[in-house]
């Protein structure tokens, strides 16, 4: 059974058809990439799958359950979490506190016990902090755990978002351009982190422009163009697909092409 099923998903903004009838299946433990030119609808697709937008048509199944139109926090409960292309960091909290928020669903949430800090709350805070520290170690941020997130460099924040999303213990993790704006060293680190996540049994779906990263780590690639599916397959098939080259790898300008081939 596929862990994530997207069926005929569609949404329009005003007159603009952003996503128009997209279908795909993601199998358990896959690293599944969604690529396409700017404006192809990749992030919109992610926003629908993670519950931030309500699709106008189509269905989303998570582990066989229909989760279309569920609120994001309900989806998180069912095992889906994500990161953001334009960072959504809790800037006024420390790095480790950011990850601790990700443990929210695994904590007891009785406000009265929180008001009077019963011993169980202390114990739970310690457990949460310990778990968060493990995840920071996984993404290589142990040294900056107690620093305010607002003071961390961009590449670190990208990895912090991944650690935070992992803290929810997702079955499926959506990564929206995890390497965008990162230098080659940082990209390499992200690459390692994503592989480690997949090795832990988390299914990864990512949107990414860095073709070297995508080709290296993805088990399958889904190509979008103007809200529609252009192609889907393994890295080598996508690389040599004439339609993909025309629309994305070659067709949309020298910049994209250079990044894809370098």
């Amino acid at each position, binding site marked *: 059974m596929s862990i994530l099923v997207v069926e005929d998903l569609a949404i329009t903004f005003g007159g603009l058809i952003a996503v128009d009838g997209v279908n795909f299946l993601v199998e358990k433990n896959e690293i599944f990439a969604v690529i396409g030119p700017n404006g192809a609808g990749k992030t919109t697709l992610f926003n629908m799958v*993670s*519950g*931030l937008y309500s699709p106008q048509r189509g269905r989303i199944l998570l582990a066989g359950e229909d989760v279309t139109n569920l*609120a*994001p*926090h309900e*989806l*998180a*409960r069912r095992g889906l*979490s*994500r990161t*953001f292309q334009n960072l*959504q*960091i*809790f*800037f*006024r*909290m420390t790095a480790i*506190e950011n990850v*601790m*928020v*990700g*443990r*929210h*669903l695994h*904590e*007891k*949430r009785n*406000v009265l016990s*929180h*008001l*009077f*800090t019963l011993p169980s*709350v202390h114990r*739970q*805070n310690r457990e*949460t902090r310990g778990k968060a520290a493990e995840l920071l170690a996984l993404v290589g941020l142990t040294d900056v755990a107690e620093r305010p997130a607002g003071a961390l460099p961009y590449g670190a924040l990208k990895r912090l*978002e991944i650690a*935070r*999303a992992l*803290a*929810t213990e997702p079955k499926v993790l959506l990564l929206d351009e995890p390497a965008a704006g990162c230098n080659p060293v940082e990209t390499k680190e992200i690459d390692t982190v994503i592989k480690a996540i997949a090795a832990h049994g988390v299914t990864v779906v990512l949107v990414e422009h860095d073709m070297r990263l995508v080709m290296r780590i993805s088990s399958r690639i889904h190509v979008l163009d103007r809200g529609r599916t252009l192609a889907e397959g393994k890295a080598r098939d996508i690389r040599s697909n004439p339609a993909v080259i025309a629309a994305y790898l070659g067709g949309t300008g020298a910049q994209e092409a250079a990044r894809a081939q370098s």
Partner: protein
Amino acid sequence: MARLLNNPFLLVIGLALVVAVLPLFLPSTFYVRVVALVFINALAVLGLNLLMGFAGQVSLGHAGFFGIGAYAVAVGPTHLGLPTWLALICGTALAALLALIVGRPILKLRGYYLAVATLGMGVLIAMVISNEAQITGGPNGMPVPRLVLFGWRAVGPQVWYWISGITLVIGVWIAINLIESPTGRAFRAIHDSETAARVLGVNVAHYKLTAFVLSAVYASVAGSYFVLFDGFVTPDTASFLRSIEFVVMAVLGGLGSIFGSIVGAAILVLLPQFLTVFHDYEHIVLGAIIIVFLIFLPAGIVPAASSLLGRRAA
């Protein structure tokens, strides 16, 4: 010092010590009275700071909850024959219930829209209080029966100094507990990014409402104390101007700073007492001081002092 400001439990103990020792240094009952007023205001501001400074949701109507607490201890004993302590609890429950009912729809709004909606709520409460003259005495207000506990009448600045001081210490302790709990982390997460909080499983609507209800409880208890201390209540307790005062206290002391709530309340209660030397220009000077503070210390007094001390220490 910076570490002291950042260590939550030292803060509670430190505050308890200050409350315990301060009366020794107060030259007259006038000052005892003023400090009791600082404590009572600080209690309301503390609640508002949980909502504004931590959960990031503005309210320009908190005097409404303050007014409900105030009138509960006036109306309850006078018209319903309730003992004052029970009236205080009923008032707090009523404020919480109203916050729960009103908060659900209006907390969907953000920024300016939420500000206007809470303002409307506050004004409505004040209007109801003014218009129900048979029960509330209307614009003239009404006397508040004294608090009697086990046959002991709570009257005078000394008594209210201790009652409000001890309650403030408890209020600070509760606020600090909350902030270092999953609920507090959810509040702070919502403040910085609602979107991220949602995808991490935080039920944003639920936690905004929790913060709103909690802040209403703080305001209501403070309102009850305020008029029990005074012995008289007028619709002024629920006025829009008072809502603004609470917000100014929270911002001046430092949004997101527990200690700042007390400092903000202290400044806004104390300054007018000392500015009386300016006679007719008192309000102008007060306004000017607030503006200067906000220009030079936009984060608020306590966060600014804390980061200054932190930098020196480092």
